[in-house]
């Protein structure tokens, strides 16, 4: 069955430090992969997506993610974190060519220290 794993429940980084959030997917073929961000009490905002092609994907707010087929991973990175990045981050996958059903990970809560 298709699944998404986010191993880190909670991460704290200092403002200005680099960030990497981990995501592993389980699916026979290459899925479509997404990172969403959710601020407290809000809906989900799409940061970036991967369907095919270049394995390094650029998103909004200075985020990027790299698809690594050999590791079944799609980790999210940012070189310098801002206090406003504090939020919950969700990795999600969808089967290519199928319906819109997204499978989400359990999320990683990011705290930013001044």
């Amino acid at each position, binding site marked *: 069955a298709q699944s*998404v794993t986010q191993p880190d429940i909670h991460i704290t980084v200092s403002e200005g430090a680099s960030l990497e959030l981990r995501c592993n997917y389980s699916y026979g073929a290459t899925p479509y992969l997404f990172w969403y961000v959710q601020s407290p009490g809000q*809906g989900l905002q799409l940061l970036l997506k991967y369907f095919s092609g270049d394995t390094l994907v650029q998103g909004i707010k200075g985020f990027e993610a790299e698809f690594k087929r050999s590791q079944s991973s799609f980790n999210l990175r940012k070189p310098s974190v801002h206090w406003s990045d504090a939020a919950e981050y969700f990795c999600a996958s969808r089967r290519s060519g199928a*319906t*819109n059903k997204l499978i989400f990970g359990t*999320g990683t809560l990011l705290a930013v220290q001044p």
Partner: protein
Amino acid sequence: DAGVTQSPTHLIKTRGQQVTLRCSPISGHKSVSWYQQVLGQGPQFIFQYYEKEERGRGNFPDRFSARQFPNYSSELNVNALLLGDSALYLCASSQLEAGETQYFGPGTRLLVL
């Protein structure tokens, strides 16, 4: 352009009651999907509707139902509410049945007492 809108924003119900949540997709989007997000978890897929037809259903009991109207807006109904139905209900829209990007609304927070 307006994004996905949902109403109401918050709702309190008691066990056994019924609730209806509403969603208006982005103009031009024909697909609407519903997700349930329990506190501390990622969203779980409930339904997808496209062109007024159900295109997918997640692992939820028959107490959950939905429909899509000719203007592509959608309603999610939950009957015989249980405490465990307390969650944030998210609606997402996209242009196509298997569209590239889904855009999420702010959600309706349901509390069942």
